[in-house]
């Protein structure tokens, strides 16, 4: 016979049904508590990052090393994806524009699409995969092998040395990578346009940039900084708060990618709404 353990004893009134209900309610309460605890934990983490950023003894050497790791070492991947993005967008859009007799709008359309949306979001998602998972795995393995504790006991603030440098480097480098991806995307688009036509480099770029305005570029650059910060904070948070077993390194890397990608999309949605209201 199935046994029911009373969770909340109500003298004389507890039925099987009410006990089941109270267990469900308690489980939901626990889930809500956990969510709020995690949220508070993230807010505290961000507060510590901000406080440590403005405290003395900033780790410049480690910051530049991280800029090199995040920026320079991502260049090959971003070069390939950026140029393919422009090339594919051109090849896909060309027949439609030809049907409407608007093929001359192709460079402008591709440039605006890339700069406003595709460049920032796709590059940020790639960076969430490469940089976010890298941070999660690196800091997670440092936690598991007690390297973060070793730093702490040798009078070094691991938050300042490991987290602040990575978050700032990601916030600074990811917008640069996005601009670089935009530029290569337009270059890829020119290559795509020349597959079935003959457009000079100067003419293509003149037409492309004649359709790009300040308000296309400015909101995209601003949201890129937020993408960078989100990827840096999520990657570091997941790694820094990894569990003690080796399994937790994989979990940290994986959840860093998933959460950072999701947040990039959410930040993009908010940014688009705000831009839409301003223009």
């Amino acid at each position, binding site marked *: 016979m199935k046994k029911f353990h009373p969770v909340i004893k109500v003298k004389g009134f507890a039925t099987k049904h009410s006990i089941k209900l109270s267990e469900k309610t308690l489980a939901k309460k626990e889930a809500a508590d956990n969510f709020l605890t995690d949220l508070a934990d993230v807010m505290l983490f961000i507060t510590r990052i901000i406080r440590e950023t403005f405290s003395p003894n900033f780790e410049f050497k480690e910051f530049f090393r991280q800029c090199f790791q995040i920026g320079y070492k991502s260049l090959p991947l971003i070069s390939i994806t950026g140029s393919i993005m422009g090339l594919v967008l051109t090849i896909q859009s060309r027949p439609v524009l030809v049907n409407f007799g608007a093929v001359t709008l192709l460079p402008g359309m591709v440039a605006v699409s890339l700069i406003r949306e595709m460049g920032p979001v796709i590059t940020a998602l790639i960076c969430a995969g490469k940089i976010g998972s890298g941070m999660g795995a690196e800091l997670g*393995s440092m936690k598991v*092998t007690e390297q973060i504790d070793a730093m702490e*006991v*040798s009078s070094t603030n691991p938050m300042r040395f490991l987290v602040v440098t990575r978050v700032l480097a990601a916030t600074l480098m990811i917008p640069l990578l996005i601009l670089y991806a935009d530029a290569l995307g337009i270059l890829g688009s020119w290559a795509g346009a020349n597959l079935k036509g003959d457009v000079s480099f100067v003419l293509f770029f003149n037409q492309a940039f004649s359709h790009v305005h300040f308000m296309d570029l400015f909101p995209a650059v601003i949201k890129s900084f937020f993408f960078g910060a989100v990827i840096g904070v999520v990657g570091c948070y997941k790694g820094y708060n990894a569990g003690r077993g080796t399994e937790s390194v994989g979990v940290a890397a994986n959840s860093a990618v998933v959460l950072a990608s999701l947040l990039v999309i959410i930040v993009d949605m908010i940014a688009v709404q705000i831009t839409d209201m301003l223009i």
Partner: protein
Amino acid sequence: MMNTDQIKSNEPVIEINGLKKSFGQQEVLINVSLKLFNGENIAVLGKSGIGKSVLIQCIVGLLTPDDGAIIVFDKNVASLNRKELGELRQKIGFLFQSGALYDSMTVKQNLEFPLRRIKKNLTENEIEEKVNEVLENVGLADALNKMPSQLSGGMRKRISLARTIVVDPMIMLYDEPTTGLDPVTSDEISSLIIEVQKKYKTSSIIITHDIKCARNTANRIIMLSEGEVYKEGKVADFNNSTDPLIESFFK
């Protein structure tokens, strides 16, 4: 900065009273009290999971006790702010069970890392001399430019010990220094612990399962059981004990 010569040998450098630490519902340390006197080595023995490592992590402030007092050099660890705790930690060396060498740095960079942060007034030449000196002391002068991944388990422990002593700590906390090593390397590490005690005049707490290491290095032994100090005494007291728990370790 204070040095160990200024403290009398019968004065405690660490004094723990009624230490209590739980993780959720699991009570690990229930009531632990002990003293570490200046210049002595004590070995802390006990079954796995009894809270030996938790004890020394509480001493350096990596874990916060639920109750009780930890007094290190007359300062209550719980009452220190982050800056004061940092200053206290500069006097304490902690050898981690895994070595905890920084994977992304060479041996030289690993040793320079705490040195540049704690002894900020040293010149480049002095840093180089100090790094070479401690590497020679642990017998690995030729490992200067190696990465931690290129080192064996015993070498990692030695380099980790070198990184700990490079800043001249007054107290050493060893977390299972010989675990996972072969008997010959274990003996070498035990000898190094005694050398460090003599040369750097340190006081040490050695957390270990290795009875040979405890016998070789400790002036006094403390055995933990069920969250409390089960027995405290000289090595001979433990060797001659007929207590079943102690016999299970020493016979």
